[in-house]
């Protein structure tokens, strides 16, 4: 009896162990590669954002990971692009004219798959055509830039809301944006500066998503423990 009870308890323990291992640690799911930012009349090397101006960032997706491993950003027959848009500047606070923090309200992130490789920084709408595979609302979107060196950061929390592949993210939590942001003129090519871009962005999306699990039965679990 004691042996049977012990065996039953070990099965319960095994089942409990099975559960937590089905949820992986937070990992990169999409790498939003280098992109360029436009905001009102802001130009490179300008750390101050005018409150009320709207920020847009466009660029190419450069890597997909679980649960999008079947998507190839280098597929010559497709083009994967992203756009951050609708971000309204709340103005910039600065510390001793060295560190500049700009918070934005609202905003969405959209990722598109297009069969035509037509994205052109001269026309931001070319980054927003094709099949919208993901869309997300942005929260706590913040950029930090500095006069002390050319580096800076861009961070946000995100909530996935739509797109043709959003169902792959069911159960994913703790989604965030992390990456680099800079207004250094050397990081924005002259051609893009002439097109109105003032900033450089390179970010990724991380989320904690469930790991696919094999369906099983108590019988199979018992077999595993014999």
């Amino acid at each position, binding site marked *: 009896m004691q042996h049977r009870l012990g065996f039953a308890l070990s099965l319960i323990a095994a089942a409990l162990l099975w559960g937590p291992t089905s949820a992986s*640690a*937070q*990992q*990169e799911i999409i*790498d939003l*590669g*280098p992109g360029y930012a436009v905001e009102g009349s802001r130009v490179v090397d300008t750390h101050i954002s005018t409150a009320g101006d709207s920020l847009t960032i466009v660029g190419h997706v*450069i*890597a997909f990971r679980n649960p999008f491993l079947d998507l*190839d950003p*280098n597929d010559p027959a497709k083009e994967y692009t992203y756009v951050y848009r609708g971000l309204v500047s709340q103005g910039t606070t600065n*510390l*001793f004219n*060295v*560190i500049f*923090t700009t918070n934005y309200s609202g905003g969405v992130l959209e990722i598109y798959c297009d069969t035509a490789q037509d994205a052109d920084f001269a026309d931001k709408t070319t980054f927003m055509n094709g099949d919208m595979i993901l869309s997300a609302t942005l929260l706590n979107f*913040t950029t*930090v830039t*500095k006069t002390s*060196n*050319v*580096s*800076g*950061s*861009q*961070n946000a929390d995100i909530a996935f809301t739509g797109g043709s592949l959003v169902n792959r993210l069911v159960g994913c*939590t*703790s989604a*965030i944006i*992390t*990456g*680099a*942001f*800079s207004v250094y003129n*050397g*990081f924005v*090519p*002259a051609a893009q500066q002439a097109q109105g871009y003032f900033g*450089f962005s*390179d*970010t*990724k999306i*991380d989320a*904690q998503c469930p790991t696919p699990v094999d369906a099983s039965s108590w019988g199979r679990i018992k077999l595993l423990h014999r």
Partner: protein
Amino acid sequence: MRALRNRGLNRGMLLVVLACLVIATAASADVILFSFAGFDWFWPTGIGQVGSCYSAVGYVNSFDSTYVNADFSTNEYTFIIDLACFVSADSSFFPFVQYIYDGSTSSMRVYCDPIATGTHGDYGTNPPNAVSPSTFIDGDCILSGTWNGDLAILLDTSTGNGDISGELMWNGGSQLGNIPVNQRNMSLAVGGVKFNPPGGPLGYHWQIDGTVFIQSPVPVEETSWGALKRDLGGY
């Protein structure tokens, strides 16, 4: 240079020096060499503590094909920033704190590992561990660089957001030859970081995502010594 000073600058030498200055002035823009993303850690003690060293590993997800021949369909590309050790912390801009880590003990390297026969990069937990950084530094080292000076980390302690930056000199790796000699130095590496990612790999400190730039090719204009002398006001 000492010989130049001792003997005095003759006209020819001055022209060479001025020509070099012109070239150096022209090299002000940057081009993207590669983009990277991953996780980092401090070891054996925490950030800002004497004796702590900073490392990061992850994936390189795009290269400029001008400088690196990459095939993402057959290879995995990974990077490491290894063991830059603590120098100082400055909280003059609180809630921002700037940490300086010694670049002389560190390097940044990029590896190419075949997907079919190599070992997939695995973060594991509590690095350094049995799989990290080892699975990120196997395969062919295609680029390696040493830091010119220190790594600077700026952290907003009120949000956990921050950035890291440093300047590299690319001086090794199987694809170094693709980068012209005059573009290998003063390469800027910048990355954004996010502290304490909820649910991130246990024992890692920040998310990191960033870009490495190199100086753009220097545009040159063919000229003659005569034209150069005229441009310099007949000196």
